[in-house]
C-alpha cells in the first residue's frame, strides 16, 4: 500500500468518484432542492410527532408546561423550513412540492396550536391558526383544515358567537366537494346541523330553530346548481333530515321522492335505501301518526327488518316506541325500546333516550328494580347526553312520587355527586353548564341555600352569557334576598342586566333591583 503507484491510483479513483457524485447531484434530479426541503420538513414533523408520542407514553396527561415544551419541535418545522415561492415560471412538479411543503408547515403549526389548546392557552392557538390561514393563501384544503380546527377551538373555549360566525363564513367560502365513495362525505355539509346542535347544547331553542331554517335554506341553495349524483344525494338526504326536524312533511315527502329517483338512476347510491325508507316512515308518522299510528308503525318495523345492520333500523325502532307511547301503548313501546337497547346500544343518537324511556316504562309497568338499574347506568354509559342529565333526578322523582321522602332526598344528594363526577370527567365539555344547572335545581330542592349560591357563583364564573345562566342568576337573586343577602342579590341582578340586555325579563329585573336597598359598591361583571 505504501507504493507511490497505488497512491496515485487511489487519488485518481477518488477524483472520479467525486466527479460522479457532483455530476449526479447537479443533473440527477432536476427539482432536488425542493424535494430535499420537503424531505427535511417531513423529518422535522416526524421527530416532533415522535417526541410528543414518547412524552405521552410516560404521562398520558402531561401538564401545561410539558405541553408548551412539546409545541417547540412542531414550531421548528416552520422555523427551519422556508416555504418556497411558486412563480409563473415554476414547473408543475415544483408547484406540487412547494404546496406539499406549505401543507407540512401548516400542519405542524396546527399541531402546535392543538397543544396550546390542551395547555389552556387558546390565545396562542388562535393566533397560530390565523397565521396558518395567512400562510395558506389560495390553498383551500389547508384553509379548510385550519378553519375546522379554529371552530373546534372557539367552541371549546365557549366563544360560541365567533364559532358560529366562522361556520357561516365557511359555508360561503367552501362549496361542498363530491366525495369518491358514498361512505365519505364532505365535512362542510355537516356544518349547518353542527350549528343547530351547538344552540341546542346551549339550550337556546330560538336560535336552534333559526339555525334549522338556515340549514334548510343552505341545502336548498346548494341544490339549485347541478352536482354529481352522489353529492346531490348527500345534500338532499341532509335536507330531508332538517325537514323532518322542522316537521315540514310536505317538503320532506317531495325530497324523499327526488332522492328515490336519484337512487334508482345511480347504482352507486344503493346504500341510501335505508335512509329513504326511514324518512318515508317518519314523514308518514308526522302526517298520519296521530290518528292512524299502525301504518307508520308497520313502515318502521319493515325498515328494522329489511336493514337490521343500518343505523336507521335503530332510529326506526326508537320512533316506533315514541309513537306507541303517544298512543299510550306502553307494553308495545317498551318492547321497541328493549330492542333498541339490546341491538343498537352503541348508536349515540338513539341509545341514550331509548335507555331512559325504557326505564320510565319499566317503572310505570311495575318493575322498579330494572328501571333503577337502567337509570343508574345511564350517566356512566352515556355521560354527555340529556339522558345522563335526567336519569339521576328521575330516581329522586320516583321516590318522591311514592312518598319515600327520605329516599328521595338521598337520591337528590346522589344526583349532585353524579353531576359533579360528570363535570370532573371533562371540565371543558359543553354539558358542564347543564350539569351545574341540574346541581342548582337539586340544591334548591334540598333547600341547601349555601350550596345553591355557591353553584350560581360558579355559573357566573364559568357559564356567563349562556341562556341557562340567565335563570340561575334569577334563582340566585331570589335565594340571596330571602336570606338577607341583598347585596349579593343586587349583584346577581346587575349581572343579569349587564349580560342579558335583550331578555324579555329585563323590565321585571329592573323593578326588583329598584326594590332592593342601594349598595355602595358595584359588583364586577362576569362576562
Amino acid at each position, binding site marked *: *500500500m505504501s507504493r507511490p503507484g497505488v497512491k496515485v491510483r487511489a487519488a485518481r479513483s477518488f477524483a472520479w468518484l467525486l466527479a460522479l457524485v457532483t455530476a449526479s447531484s447537479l443533473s*440527477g*434530479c432536476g427539482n*432536488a432542492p425542493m424535494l430535499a426541503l420537503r*424531505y427535511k420538513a*417531513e423529518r422535522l414533523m*416526524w421527530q416532533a410527532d415522535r417526541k410528543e408520542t414518547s412524552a405521552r407514553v410516560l404521562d398520558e396527561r402531561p401538564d401545561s408546561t410539558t405541553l408548551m415544551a412539546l409545541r417547540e419541535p412542531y414550531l421548528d418545522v416552520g422555523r427551519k423550513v422556508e416555504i418556497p415561492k411558486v412563480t409563473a415560471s415554476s414547473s408543475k412538479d415544483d408547484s406540487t412540492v412547494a404546496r406539499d411543503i406549505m401543507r407540512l408547515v401548516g400542519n405542524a403549526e396546527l399541531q402546535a396550536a392543538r397543544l396550546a389548546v390542551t395547555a389552556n392557552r387558546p390565545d396562542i392557538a388562535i393566533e397560530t391558526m390565523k397565521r396558518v390561514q395567512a400562510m395558506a393563501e389560495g390553498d383551500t384544503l389547508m384553509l379548510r383544515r385550519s378553519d375546522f380546527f379554529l371552530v373546534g377551538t372557539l367552541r371549546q373555549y365557549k366563544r360560541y358567537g365567533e364559532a358560529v360566525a366562522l361556520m357561516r363564513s365557511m359555508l360561503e367560502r367552501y362549496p361542498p366537494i363530491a366525495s369518491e365513495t358514498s361512505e365519505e362525505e364532505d365535512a362542510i355539509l355537516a356544518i349547518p346541523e353542527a350549528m343547530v346542535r351547538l344552540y341546542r347544547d346551549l339550550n337556546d331553542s330560538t336560535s336552534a330553530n333559526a339555525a334549522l331554517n338556515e340549514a334548510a335554506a343552505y341545502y336548498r341553495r346548494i341544490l339549485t346548481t347541478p352536482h354529481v349524483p352522489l353529492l346531490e344525494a348527500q345534500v338532499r338526504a341532509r335536507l330531508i333530515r332538517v325537514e323532518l326536524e322542522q316537521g315540514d312533511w310536505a317538503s320532506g315527502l317531495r325530497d324523499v321522492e327526488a332522492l328515490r329517483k336519484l337512487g334508482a338512476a345511480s347504482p352507486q347510491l344503493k346504500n341510501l335505501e335505508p335512509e329513504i325508507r326511514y324518512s318515508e316512515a317518519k314523514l308518514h308518522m308526522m302526517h298520519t301518526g296521530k290518528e292512524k299510528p299502525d301504518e307508520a308503525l308497520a313502515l318502521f318495523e319493515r325498515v328494522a327488518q329489511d336493514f337490521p345492520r343500518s343505523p336507521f333500523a335503530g332510529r326506526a325502532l326508537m320512533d316506533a316506541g315514541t309513537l306507541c307511547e303517544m298512543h299510550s301503548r306502553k307494553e308495545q313501546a317498551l318492547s321497541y325500546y328493549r330492542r333498541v337497547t339490546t341491538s343498537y346500544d352503541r348508536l349515540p343518537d338513539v341509545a341514550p333516550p331509548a335507555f331512559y324511556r325504557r326505564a320510565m316504562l319499566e317503572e310505570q309497568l311495575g318493575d322498579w328494580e330494572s328501571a333503577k338499574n337502567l337509570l343508574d347506568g345511564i350517566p356512566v354509559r352515556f355521560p354527555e347526553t340529556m339522558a345522563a342529565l335526567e336519569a339521576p333526578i328521575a330516581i329522586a322523582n320516583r321516590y318522591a312520587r311514592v312518598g319515600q321522602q327520605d329516599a328521595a332526598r338521598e337520591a337528590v344528594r346522589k344526583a349532585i355527586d353524579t353531576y359533579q363526577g360528570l363535570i370532573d370527567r371533562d371540565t371543558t365539555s359543553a354539558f358542564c353548564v347543564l350539569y351545574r344547572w341540574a346541581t342548582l335545581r337539586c340544591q334548591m330542592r334540598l333547600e341547601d341555600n349555601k350550596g345553591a349560591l355557591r353553584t350560581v357563583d360558579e355559573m357566573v364564573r364559568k357559564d356567563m352569557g349562556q341562556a341557562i345562566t340567565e335563570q340561575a342568576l334569577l334563582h340566585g337573586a331570589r335565594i340571596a334576598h330571602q336570606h338577607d343577602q341583598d347585596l349579593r342579590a343586587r349583584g346577581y341582578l346587575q349581572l343579569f342586566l349587564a349580560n342579558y340586555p335583550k331578555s324579555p325579563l329585563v323590565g321585571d329585573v329592573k323593578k326588583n333591583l329598584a326594590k332592593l336597598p342601594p349598595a355602595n359598591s358595584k359588583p364586577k361583571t362576569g362576562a
Partner: protein
Amino acid sequence: MHRNFRVARACGVEAARDFQWHEYAPLGWILGVQFLFLILALNVGTILGMGTVGAILRLLSGDAPLHYPTFFLYLPNAASWLELCLYTVAGAILIPLAIARIQAPMDPELEGSGLKARLKRAWPPTLVAGIVMALLLWGWQWIFNQALVPLIRASLPQIQSAALIWGISMLGSYSLSALFLYVPVVALHPGSTFMGSLREGVQEGLRLYKWTILYVLIFALPAMPFLMVMQLGMSFIAERMRPEMVVVLIGLYATLISLATYLTYAAAARLHWASQMEDA
C-alpha cells in the same frame, strides 16, 4: 476425506489469522463506496443527498421513497442493488486484485509488472461470471417465489414461514455463488484464457464445492442476523424505532459481508493452491 477436511480447515484458519490490510484494501474500496452511499442517504434532506441517493432510489422505485420515513423502507433494496453492481462491475477488477495480493507470496509473478497483465486477462471472465451469477440468483429467486413460497406459507404460521423462506432463499443464493467463486482465482493463472477461466473456474467450484460452501456460510454467519433483520423487520425499525437505524444496520451488514468476502476468497485461494500442490 479426513485429510481434505484438515487441509480445508487449515486454509480457513490461516485466511482468518493472516488478515492483511493491503490484501483487503480492494474490497475496502467497495465498502468505502457503500459507506459514501449511506452517508448521503443520511443527508437526503440536503441537495447533495437528494441529487445522488434520492435520484438512485427514484430511479429504482419511483417517487414513493422521496418521503421521510418511507425512504428508509426502500433503502435496503437500493443498497443491495448497489452492492450487487459494485461487486459485479467494480469487483471484476478489484476482486482479482485482492486475490492476486493474497496469492502473491505463493506466486511471485503476481507482484510487480506481471500483475497488470494477469489482471487484464482476469477481469473479463470475472465480470461475465458475476453477471451470470446475478442472473442465476434472479432466476433462483423467481422459481423459489413461484414454486415453494406459497407452499411454505400455506403450511406454516406467519413468523415461522417468513423465517424459513428467508433461510432457504439465503442458502440457495450462497450455494449458487459458491459455484463461481474460483473463476477469478483461475483467471489469474499464467496463460489463462477467457473461456478456460470460466470453464475451469466452475469445474474447480464443483470439485471443492462442499468446502467452499462451508467457507461461505461460516464467514457470512456474523452478517446473517443483520441481513435477516433488514429483510424481515425493516418496517418495524423504520416506523417504530428511529428510521436512521436502518442505515446503521446496512452499514454493519456491509462491513461484515465485505470482511466475509475477503476471508472467503482468501481461504478459497489457499485451498485452490493446496489442491493444486497436492495434484502436482
